[in-house]
């Protein structure tokens, strides 16, 4: 059995860990609230961009086929995989589930004789991919817990360039969608070619009743022309999609870290209880031993 002193040092160190993890939980909770507000702030803008793109797509008519970012290419030989991870760990399965989903997609592609082209945001994703010997076409770090719109614009710009140059034929994004502070879901979406179906589909258009929509069709002036404007709107739509993924990932990161730190705090508490019990037993044993020695000593004197 460990000596009292040893056990006492271990209890002290677990108490320190408990304090640190509890503080980290509180910090993550505060950051999570801000991240949630930023998601809510983006929503009206993102919805409006989608509505405008949809309207321009409708009025551009057959010209829509000539917008390169909307054109599906066959065969899709090279597929870009953009992983959205965090700069820091200590967040449970947050980073590993993204890397796992990415490598799974890559092996599916390789089984079909296709090639994965890697892009990653967040130090964790970048270093896991480098460790696995994958070449990165784009690595973006230093902003994952507080992404700015310009970060999304940079990533979108590079992916769009790669798509237009023919370096990739399709681009997929894998990120942790924010469901609730306790739940993050690894989600995969196609960024490029921007899905014409998602843009032109009439579903999910709750705030635009049918009659109003048909009345509006084709009677707007365009500056520049509808197809020209669509060419500008689609890249913007891609930027906004990436920005939304970055914001959701940031909120998910704080949520995951909060949960991870809470269970770490609970575990530390349990260990402290166990060790305290052990220490009391050790002390009791020592006292019993001393009493026995005193009694034995006294017995020998009689």
């Amino acid at each position, binding site marked *: 059995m460990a000596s009292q002193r040893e056990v006492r040092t271990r209890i002290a160190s677990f108490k320190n860990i408990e304090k640190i993890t509890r503080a980290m939980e509180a910090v993550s909770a505060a950051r999570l609230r801000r991240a949630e507000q930023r998601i809510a*702030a983006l929503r009206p803008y993102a919805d409006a961009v989608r509505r*405008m793109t949809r309207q321009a797509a409708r009025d551009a008519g057959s010209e829509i086929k000539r917008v390169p970012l909307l054109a599906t290419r066959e065969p899709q030989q090279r597929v870009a995989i953009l992983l959205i991870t965090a700069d820091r760990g200590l967040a449970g399965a947050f980073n590993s589930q993204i890397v796992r989903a990415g490598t799974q997609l890559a092996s599916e592609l390789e089984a079909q004789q296709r090639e994965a082209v890697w892009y990653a945001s967040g130090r964790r994703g970048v270093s896991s991919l480098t460790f696995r010997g994958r070449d990165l076409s784009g690595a973006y770090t230093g902003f994952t817990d507080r992404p700015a719109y310009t970060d999304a614009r940079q990533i979108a710009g590079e992916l769009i360039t790669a798509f237009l140059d023919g370096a990739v034929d399709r681009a997929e994004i894998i990120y942790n969608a924010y469901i609730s502070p306790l739940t993050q879901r690894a989600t995969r979406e196609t960024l490029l070619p921007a899905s014409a179906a998602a843009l032109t589909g009439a579903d999910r258009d709750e705030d635009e009743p049918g009659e109003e929509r048909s009345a509006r069709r084709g009677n707007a002036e365009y500056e520049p022309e509808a197809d020209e*404007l669509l060419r500008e709107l689609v890249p913007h739509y891609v930027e906004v999609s990436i920005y939304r993924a970055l914001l959701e990932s940031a909120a998910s990161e704080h949520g995951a870290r909060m949960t991870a730190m809470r269970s770490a705090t609970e575990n530390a508490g349990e260990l402290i209880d166990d060790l305290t019990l052990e220490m009391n037993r050790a002390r009791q044993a020592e006292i019993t031993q001393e009493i026995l020695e005193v009694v034995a000593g006294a017995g020998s004197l009689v």
Partner: protein
Amino acid sequence: MAHTKFACEVLTPEGEVFNDEVEMVSTRTTLGLIAILANHAPVLARLEPTELRIYRSENDILRLAQAEGFMQMSDNRALLLLEQVSEIDALDRGELERAREAAQSASEAAPEGSEEATRATRELRRAEAFLRILDAS
């Protein structure tokens, strides 16, 4: 004479900037300056960096520095989507001049017609437009 009012909403990815009844909005599209009054014909336009003026009334004018964006006027509602908006007082001349220099050299370094060149040109136009707003105010 007081003008008829209409709804005007200015949104950025960071959130809502303005949402109120206004008499007139003046901004710049790819084709040039445009002023929107109530009952303007439906329009969908690409916006260029410029000084955005929102006239709540003749004497109550909100002036903002707008980056690139899009505008939609329909059903007597003006909706402006802007990548970035700042108060004119918040613009920093030194910072804008540095951004202009950086964009200038980036656009010279980038191959002609490339995506980088387009991006650098856009940065350059934004910095120049914001500097012009500062010069005018």
